[in-house]
């Protein structure tokens, strides 16, 4: 029984030990940051899939700060630089039709604002801002779910091997 309990700990220890220097190793870090999600669609409700997107930062309205394309659902997500104060402008174009929307910092970094346009729906991206989007119970629940997932998986394999 003690061996069975120790196995997952040993497994986790091995994983932790991988932080040593490995030639050409790849390190991936992550951080939670507030993002803005664009939902672009035509005024008949059809999504603007694969449309051209140009994002203009507050400090330079002439040159795009970021370009890209919407996904199949007409969505485009980016993380604005909070250090740049002022309105962000996002232009979406496709086949000779387009629109441009201006999003204020207040709307961008608030939790409860949606800017509703006819063919370019813009809202704050749900679930990406750890500072403001998740309540403490949600954070606890997510953490518990993650831990329980690891424990449950480990127990499953331990029992199977036994």
């Amino acid at each position, binding site marked *: 029984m003690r061996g069975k309990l120790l196995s997952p700990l040993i497994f986790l220890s091995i994983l932790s030990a991988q932080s040593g220097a490995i030639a050409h190793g790849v390190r991936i870090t992550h951080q939670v940051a507030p993002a803005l999600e664009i939902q672009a669609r035509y005024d008949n409700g*059809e999504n603007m899939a694969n449309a051209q997107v140009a994002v203009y930062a507050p400090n330079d309205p002439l040159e795009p700060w970021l370009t890209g394309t919407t996904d199949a659902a007409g969505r485009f997500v980016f993380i604005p630089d909070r250090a740049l104060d002022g309105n962000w402008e996002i232009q979406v*174009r496709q086949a000779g039709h*387009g629109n441009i929307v201006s999003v204020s910092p207040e709307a961008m970094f608030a939790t409860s604002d949606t800017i509703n*346009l006819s063919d370019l729906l813009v809202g704050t991206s749900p679930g990406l801002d750890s500072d403001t989007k998740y309540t403490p119970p*949600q954070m606890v629940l997510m953490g518990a779910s993650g831990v*329980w997932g690891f424990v449950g998986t480990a127990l499953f394999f331990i029992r199977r091997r036994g």
Partner: protein
Amino acid sequence: MKRRTVLLSVAMFVLGAAALLGCRQGKQPPLMEPKSDIAVDSAFSQAESSQLGTLEIRANGEDFVRRGLVSKDGWRIKFEHVYVNLSDIKAYQADPPFDPFAGGDIQAVGAVHLNQSLTVDLALGDEEAAPILVGQLAAQPGRYNALTWKMLPADRGPTAGSVLTLVGLAERAERAIRFTIKVNQPYTYACGDFVGDQRKGILKPGGNADLEVTFHFDHLFGNGELPADDPVNTDALGFDPLAVLADDGRLQGDLGMLKEGLSVSHYLLLESALSGLAHVGEGHCKEGEALP
């Protein structure tokens, strides 16, 4: 024990996900209220004359007019003239930016006004021709991100009485129709920021910038290069309904004649297309608004 553990794990994830989703849906943000009130000109502070720049107003019928187009029903249309009468053009520094779809009025912190009525021929020039210069205005620096104008009947000249006159030739197979179509109903358009390859209306102190009144004639005739079910085509009149009204290879008429000759559904398409004709680059405009 094994089965129970697995089921318990799955249940925990499902419950967690459901709880998170529920929390999200409970916080759906409300819609932004429409804007109201208009402030024009008066809020402009007086700048030093050296700070003033030049704002050009241009009109563009795009390649559809200069090069011709193939309608949604296969007519090859070439335009000899596309006269449009532009009046009362105003460029605004709107704050917040004006979006014609969102409703409400333009809230301007400043504006400039081209106080003249001018008929321009959008068909002038070749495919490479620059958009036609309508007027130049001395303007304070800033972001001119909204534009309004009227199309009123011309009071003199060959297009007197019309806001829009289309003169050209439509051909399909062995058939050719010379047409002159006059639109004599006034329109007003309110538009937001220019949408296109380049930004427009950004005027630096002592610099130059331009704004563009753009007309999309594919909204009227459709575009034979696009699928039949493309909204540009489903919403367009095409040329077939007009060809039916031609007599001995000629079609000459105004909106009254077309209203009488076209079916109700075709006339509604024509009306809708004319209302949606005006753009700022690729950005749509709102028609029928009382302008500030």
